């Protein structure tokens, strides 16, 4: 295999992010030994994230081409996913800065780990070889496990991270098992060779077993039912900025890979479409149903993340038919971007509240959100906007995203699935609007709520997210065009 240095340009965002992580780690060495000032790290990380975002957007117009002899690919789809990941990282760094500062928990690893995981995500979106997929998956996952355990005080973060690690390793093992089957069936780990085997008609049971195992491995990462069990505990236990990044970034990368494996590896969707449809039904139902009884906003958002995985699976299922495949891929990308912006904003608000609760020793319960509009009208308005967007009500990004996904499902003759999706998302109104009700209509229980200092940078990120959510909801044109251009690779 020839190594072509020019191919490195194709993975520029991942390289930039990895370089940023290394810069941060190295700079640790030169800090003062006692009480070093690490505030610069957030801004360095944000700068590298921004550079990654810029690089992925700049590469958008490049023609699609295979890299490293077919082990990876540089195409619009991957660039859009990388852009979503980098934007999520950028916003999360800004949120994390004030969050960690206020908890006096800024330590060296945090931003480096975040950059490493993002670099894994970007590579994941580009990988077309099962081995590369596995390596990128582990780069992403290991860093995220560590981030979950980042706040070492208290039992919950450690427990959450440990659970995530155990179950995540289990899922990785399943994925590897599937990769082994695929290699056994096709004699190669390249998705293209796998597709050739499938096309040749000589596909054996082995091939389909491998498809099921690989899909199961990523169904775990995207939090599809019944592989969702880890989600509530981990989302609840991890620091809120990390949860937001996880929900936006990991989901985007994992969905991109799932689509890549299924469409590029197993071709025409006659075989896998039905299963994805079943997963989508199950995920939408269980996610929305289990979100209803939650009293903790973080756990509610965790189940909401499961429910949203269900809606995204609808888009994946719609890609099973070739006619509207590019449309469905565009819908998927648009949905990922809109969900990312919304959920990072929501978790940033949670981060501010969570920190107050930590200071006052209160539990994370809806009742502690009561009367937020009195004290912090802007925060309350932003949270309501994110809730409305998650519920899919106009004029927000969530509405346009659901609209495009359900439309692509209808074009793909999945009308019952689309109807079911609409019904479950109406049910979702119940638990999203409950937050709004508490924020605006329930008076505060006690007058002497803890006044934390202002988290200025988190406020900036929240404003940015709110702007994106509104922008994508009111003027979706340019975003949709971007998503469509990225999805054009699936138009063949």
């Amino acid at each position, binding site marked *: 295999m020839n190594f072509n240095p020019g191919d490195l340009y194709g993975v520029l965002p991942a390289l930039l992010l990895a370089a940023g992580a290394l810069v941060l780690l190295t700079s640790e060495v030169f800090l003062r030994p006692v009480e070093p000032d690490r505030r610069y790290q957030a801004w360095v990380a944000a700068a590298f994230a921004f550079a990654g975002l810029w690089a992925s957007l700049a590469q958008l117009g490049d023609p699609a081409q295979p890299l490293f002899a077919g082990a990876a690919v540089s195409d619009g789809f991957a660039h859009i996913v990388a852009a979503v990941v980098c934007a999520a990282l950028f916003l999360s760094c800004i949120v994390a800065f004030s969050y960690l500062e206020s908890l006096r928990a800024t330590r060296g690893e945090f931003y480096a780990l975040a950059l490493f995981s993002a670099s894994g995500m970007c590579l994941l979106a580009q990988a077309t070889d099962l081995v590369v997929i596995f390596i990128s998956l582990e780069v992403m996952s290991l860093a995220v496990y560590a981030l979950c355990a980042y706040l070492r005080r208290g039992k919950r973060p450690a*427990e959450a991270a*440990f*659970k995530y690690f*155990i*179950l995540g390793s*289990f*899922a990785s093992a*399943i994925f590897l098992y599937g990769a082994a089957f695929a290699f056994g069936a096709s004699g190669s780990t390249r998705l293209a060779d796998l597709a050739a085997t499938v096309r040749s008609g000589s*596909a054996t*049971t082995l091939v*389909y*077993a491998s*498809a*099921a*195992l690989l*899909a*199961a491995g990523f*169904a*775990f990462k995207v939090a599809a*039912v*019944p*592989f969702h*069990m*880890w989600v*509530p*505990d981990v989302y609840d236990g991890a620091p809120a900025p990390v949860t937001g990044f996880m929900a936006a970034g990991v989901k985007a990368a994992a969905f991109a890979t799932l689509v890549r494996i299924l469409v590029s590896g197993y071709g025409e969707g006659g*075989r*896998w479409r*039905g*299963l994805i449809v*079943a997963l989508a039904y199950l995920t939408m139902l269980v996610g929305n*149903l*289990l979100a*209803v*009884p939650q009293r903790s906003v973080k756990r509610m958002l965790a189940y909401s993340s499961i429910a949203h995985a269900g809606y995204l699976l609808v888009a994946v299922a719609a890609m099973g038919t070739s006619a509207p495949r590019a449309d469905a891929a565009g819908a998927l990308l648009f949905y990922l971007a809109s969900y990312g912006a919304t959920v990072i904003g929501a978790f940033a608000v949670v981060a501010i509240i969570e920190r107050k609760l930590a200071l006052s020793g209160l539990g994370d319960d809806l009742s502690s959100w009561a009367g937020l509009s009195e004290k912090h009208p802007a925060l309350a308005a932003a949270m309501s906007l994110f809730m409305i967007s998650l519920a899919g009500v106009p004029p927000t990004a969530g509405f346009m995203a659901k*609209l495009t996904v359900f*439309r692509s499902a209808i074009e793909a003759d999945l009308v019952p699935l689309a109807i079911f999706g609409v019904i479950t998302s109406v049910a979702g109104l119940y638990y999203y609007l409950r937050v709004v009700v508490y924020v605006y209509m329930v008076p505060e229980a006690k007058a002497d709520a803890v006044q934390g200092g202002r988290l200025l940078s988190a406020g900036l990120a929240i404003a940015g997210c709110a702007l994106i959510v509104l922008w994508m909801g009111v*003027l*979706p*044109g*340019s975003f*949709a*065009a971007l998503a469509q251009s990225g999805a054009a690779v699936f138009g063949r």
Partner: protein
Amino acid sequence: MEVSWLHLIPLLPLAGAAVCGLLGKWLPKAWLYAIALVTVLLSFCIGLTGFLRLPEEVPIFHEVAFNWFSAGSLHVDMGFLFDRLSGALTLVVTGVGFLIHVYSVGYMDEDPGYWRYFAYLNLFIAAMLTLVLGDNLVAMFVGWEGVGLCSYLLIGFWYTDEEKAYAGRKAFVVNRIGDVGFLIGIFVLFNATGSVSFAQLGVAPLTLATASIAALCLFIGAIGKSAQLPLYVWLPDAMAGPTPVSALIHAATMVTAGVYMVARMSHLYTSAPGVLALVALVGALTALWAALIGTAQNDIKRVLAYSTVSQLGFMFIGVGVGAFFAGTMHLVTHAFFKACLFLGSGAVIHGLAGEQDLRRMGGLRKYMPQTAWTFAVATVAISGIFPISGFFSKDEILAQALHTKAYDFLTLGPGGPHLTSLGTILYLVGSFTALITSFYMWRCYFLAFEGEYRGPEGVHPHESPGIMTSPLWILAALSVLSLVIGLPEPWVRGSFLEHLNWEHFTGRLFSPPRGGPPAGFSPWPGYLVALAIGWAGFGLAWLLYAPARAASGDDRFAALFPRLRNAFANKFWVDEFYDWLVVRPLWSFARGLWRIFDATIIDGLFINGSAQLVAWVAALARRFQNGDVQRYAAVTALGVLALVYAFLLRSSP
């Protein structure tokens, strides 16, 4: 011609609104005023420059600002269309808007919410400009809803007063009824033609049925927004807002949107002659209805409000008989004199420390001469007394109504229905309404400005500051000057005034009504009748409300027509009727629903039931979600098994 500066016209006031709304609380007052006023003035200047530079051959500027959204085959651009009609209206909106901004500086100066007020006002201008300049129905609808929003915000501006908040709510609810019609109209048109842009709708061939349904639905929207029967009830209550708002939104601009829409969609409406006849009929009925009520109102702003409803009816007669130019011309002249009247009433209210009751005014000409003079000029204009603008524009409508006597365009084909007498009926109703209009407007003037002062003790009526009187003078001057656009074409043919003539000016803009435009005719007989009517109204008012005994005028009126006046004074009991017909049944229906559905089904089955469901789900969730990693792993493994099994099952042939 494609240009790139049109978006600035609505954008500037929008930016002003954003600055005033977001930073207004902290900005120094002078800065805030400067920002609010200058943005509108700049818009006006851009509009004026564009207006003067409109190319002669194809007098259209067009700009596609951005692709707004594409959903399937629905492709909507946010585009702006600046032709002679929308251009003229842009000038009216920004020009009158600017004057009212200036006036508001004096009027709202002491209100603590002044920054909110100016933000809303600028937002309104931006929305109104979007409505006027939008090049497609969806953009128009955005402006339509935007002006509605600002209207509710400003009606309920003093929202702590329960009654005023109620007025805002009423306007909101009544307008919703119309807006649903408007939306359905858009859908029908899109479904039939595949487009929402005016350019394409203006040439699209439509079947009679489609055109009629779409035109009817859109007209329902116009009925709501322009306060026609039966949805006019919100407008008199809308006077709860600050008076400059009534002048700008509820008289000069927003409420005329329906007329503008019908004129803009002239192709659609001439394709649906039945609906067009309905438009004229509704207009005529509303004009008469509101004018009658206006004769017996004592609140000065309510008199003007009913007069606005009535004048809007006149405009609908104009567009309804296919004389789109006449309807829109009256729109323009009405904007000037009605704004002047409203601002004058505002000055009166201001000078009398909040007094609005005509019975407690009188003799104000001595104390506020400038207000009195400008009010008198505008009253002359609205009562159609030669030669001020209202005379020409109103008479043009009546002449057109009479002249389309055969209602040619109702002839859909050979042997189609003829409503030969409709034109005559419209003319008679309109002329009678003109008589009443002149009567009640002079009544209003006499009661407020002539005779002895009957106002509250201890209040010293005073003239308003110059910042409030100068807009009055400008508007009064415009009320007079705008007569040039209404001069009959034969009079000005060949002279430079010909270019200013509205009929000539908007010549190729509107679709000619089916059956051909009315041929030339001599305006004189009509003018003489109209002149007589205008003076007759004045005479009647003088008889009953002559300055010396104005206070007892209402009693004399009541003695002449006791039952009629009672009906007028009670506004024909329409509010009570709606209360009886809609509100109460709805309440009892809702109460019944509440009993059946809420108390038993919802509370019993869903609330308690769903609480149980939630508890059950939670219990189920707890069983699986107990935090036990082994259990999680087991569920995952089972899922993998199921997935592999299903895959193999499905893939085995």
